[in-house]
């Protein structure tokens, strides 16, 4: 066990505890006891999966990265063709008693593939050719996920690009080109991809008075939930905003609001600090990594994790528009939990092998 990152593990276990407690609250509010129990099972299974990856050698796994990557793309294609439409998207694949969300797992495979490719490039700055190849590598699954369409998950792929380009190093001109390109992509998305309700969300965020009962309603109720928690909260399973269902999507996107309402600033800050601990430890592991491959894996997992937490909490507290980005480990959902744990397991592997001379 000494070879595991204990701080990272402690943070993870604390978040898992919060996750289960928060889901017992939504289970009561939504009258579905299954939520809390299934979440607990997924968290337990996730910890085991994390251990399996932690004791694997990330360098060996990276060698099979193209295989995982190709398999992921195939699954995403299968989803597009075969998955039933659920809540307007084709994101979930029924397998036996479970429904699997391949887009969550494909992100881990993409991180591994990107890291493997970046690790081959040992110069201080990335060349234009490799940047193009890296972008294409991420773009392929993103396009497939956007076709589902699942904007929230697709957005979680972008930190991978940011991480690998930042760590790999780019000349200033390239950053400029990238920013311009990103603006062009966003513009194109506004014109051709975004649904009216998604545009409305963004406009509402810019001007909250725009639609108090549409997208603005969720944000308003979420802020009321967080703020009314006060210093010590209303008590577990006693939050009026969640129990009386003023909070939308409370077991998924807005689970942090449930936690903040019921445990107050004390509980919410503790959870946020646990997330910060995890995110910062992931970067520390990247710093300590023995090789470029480990550094890129740990920093990509860390960036995706930190961005997910930051965007979700910013959304719940009214600092960002609602985008459908879930809170890792806390939001209800097996695929998301397992994918997060796989990422954490890989980072533990990087940590465990930081001094290995084999």
């Amino acid at each position, binding site marked *: 066990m000494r070879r595991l990152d204990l701080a990272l593990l402690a943070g993870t276990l604390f978040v898992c505890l919060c996750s289960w407690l928060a889901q017992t609250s939504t289970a009561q509010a939504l009258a579905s006891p299954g939520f809390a129990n299934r979440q607990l099972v997924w968290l337990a299974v996730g910890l085991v999966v994390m251990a399996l990856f932690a004791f694997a050698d990330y*360098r060996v796994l990276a060698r099979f990265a193209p295989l995982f990557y190709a398999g992921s793309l195939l699954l995403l294609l299968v989803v597009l063709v075969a998955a039933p439409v659920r809540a307007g998207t084709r994101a979930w694949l029924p397998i036996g008693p479970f429904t699997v969300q391949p887009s969550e797992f494909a992100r881990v495979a993409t991180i591994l593939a990107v890291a493997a490719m970046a690790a081959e490039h*040992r110069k*201080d700055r990335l060349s234009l050719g490799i940047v193009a190849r890296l972008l294409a590598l991420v773009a392929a699954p993103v396009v497939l996920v956007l076709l589902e369409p699942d904007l929230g998950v697709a957005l979680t792929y972008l930190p991978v690009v940011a*991480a690998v380009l*930042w*760590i790999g*190093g780019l000349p200033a001109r390239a950053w400029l080109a990238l920013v311009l390109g990103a603006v062009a992509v966003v513009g194109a998305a506004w014109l051709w991809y975004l649904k009216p309700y998604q545009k409305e969300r963004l406009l509402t965020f810019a001007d909250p*008075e725009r639609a*108090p*009962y549409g997208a603005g309603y969720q944000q308003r*109720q979420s*802020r*009321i*939930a*967080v*703020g*009314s*928690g*006060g*210093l010590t909260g209303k008590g577990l399973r006693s939050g*009026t*905003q969640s129990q*009386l*269902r*003023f*909070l939308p999507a409370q077991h998924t996107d807005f689970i942090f609001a449930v936690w*903040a*309402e019921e445990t*107050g*600033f004390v509980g*919410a*800050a503790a959870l*946020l*600090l646990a*997330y*910060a601990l995890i*995110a*910062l430890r992931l*970067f*520390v592991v*990247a*710093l300590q*990594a*023995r*090789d*470029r491959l480990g*550094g890129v894996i740990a*920093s990509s997992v*860390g*960036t995706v994790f*930190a961005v997910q937490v*930051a965007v979700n*909490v*910013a959304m719940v*507290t*009214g*600092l960002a528009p609602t985008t459908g980005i879930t809170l890792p480990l806390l939001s209800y959902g097996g695929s998301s939990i397992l994918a997060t744990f796989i990422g954490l397991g890989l980072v533990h592997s990087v940590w465990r092998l930081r001094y290995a*001379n*084999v």
Partner: protein
Amino acid sequence: MTYVRDDLRSVQRRLVVALLATAAVFVLLLGRLWLLQVVQGARWRTLSENNRLRRIPLEAPRGVVTDVRGDIVLGNRSVFQLLLFPEEMDEPARTARFLTGLEIAPPADVAARIDKALRTSHLPSVLADNLTWRQVAAIAAHRAEYPELEVHPATRRAFPDGPGIAHLAGQLGEADPGQLAANANLHAGQLVGRSGLERAYDDRLGGTPGNLVVVVDAFGRQISELNDEPPVPGRPLQITLDLALQREAVAAMAGQVGAVVALDPRDGAVRVLLSQPAFDPELFAGHLEPAAWRELVGDPLKPLHNRALQALYPPGSTIKPIYAAGALDDGVRTAASRDFCRGGVTIYGHPYRCWLGGGHGGVDIERAIEVSCDTFFYHLARDAGIDQVGSWAREFGLGQATGIELPGESSGLVPDDAWSRRARGQPWYGGETISVGIGQGPILVTPVQLAVAYAALVNGGRLVRPHLVAGTGAAPRPVDVDPIALAAVRRGMERVVTGESGTARRQASLPVVIAGKTGTSQVVRKQEGVRWQELPWEQRHHALFVGYAPVAAPELVVAVVVEHGGDAASVAAPIAGRILQRAFGPPPEPDPAVVANAASAGPPAAPTPRPRPNGSGDAAP
């Protein structure tokens, strides 16, 4: 396969930047949590409480008003009212569009009511009552979109007799800011009595509103009740009115403009109080439609005016019995005094005509009342002078409010020299005394004053205070007139109906013998040789009649004024006659509708037996 450690110095430099940036983001988020939860916590807490708690005012049903026999004058019925919780509303224009679409009211009214609700307070306001089932269903269906709207069962005044009791009942209106400030029990939009009985007995009828605090979920569904202060309904009120007689008056006055007041001369209990034209009291039972209000206010016939208490009419010849009583008592005339009528007199160089151009010949005081001889009273007024004439009128309560409980009563006018100097800036002109002698000129009375004055003439000389609730009248004031004088005047009034020259002798054919006095008050100067039927309506004289029965021991005095009725004997007297026949004559054929109404009206409170005529047949000639 061997791995060497990569040279990662530049990578590590960039990682440190990323690490610091991440730390900064988390510090920012922590600050945001601190701001929301600790700094602004109390504010958000209030918002979350308001999210889930709703205080719903429970209006107290107003007290039921029953008549002397327990029939319902003012009842209650169940309605659905629409409450608006202003702080739940984020977009008033959207709510207004929705309500306009439901035809709650015209667009301008809906907007005005929402504006008012937003201004008055943070408490819910009643936007509408009397919702239709379709509106209730539509609001329920859109509950999640419009959490600010709430349909709530309530009660509303019911008026079994409709416009027939409109002025008596009076109007309800929303409590004004002054009343709200003065009475903590009132809430914005609560209905209080504005006129009539509703105002006079508002404390008793109004009850105390209650509150219901409920916990609602995001869909506006009621989860539980936190506390419940049930409203205390208004107390029931039995009044002296006799609905059967009131209905008879409504039927008799159909199409006429004027007023009827009937009261029991023994104690002043009001049995009939009617003003025509009336309005639909439903309009004032809830939230008034401005359009309907403007229409009522703009109506030249002034339907909101309670003529029975507020309208001022020259009494015309109905004043004569009062003067006669005063003159006999003061010795200005005796029972044996005789005058001779040639159809007119000349006093102070000015000709005054008797209504009967050929003259009445020799008349004593009883005959002067029977035939309504103007000449007799011209001379009487000249001999007495305005001050003494005025004292007789005042002795019978004219020129001062009768003190009936209903608000807004006029006090009328009994003129004298002081009044003339004060009001007109000139001394009294003696010639006017002659006009006042026959109830014309600046002497003005209300119908209820006439009824009270006649009650004093026929009840042995007591000026009663008219009242609608038993026990509220002040003790009667004795009238300082000799009973022998009153008896003579009563004989004269009996001869008005039964005498062969009586001005109301047409009423003699009725089964119940009545007595009384006709009166015609001029609106414009009399034109010779023009029949009243040929005059335009607004130039016709007012027709008056004050009658009573049974003649030996009167139990009911009826004062009738028909504006521009033209002729007292053929227009006003039959109305009074009809009411007195209904009171003392043979019972009418039972009307199935009335029977059904009485059966459904609930248990009557202590039914009072209908006053029966006793000894109406032994009237002295």
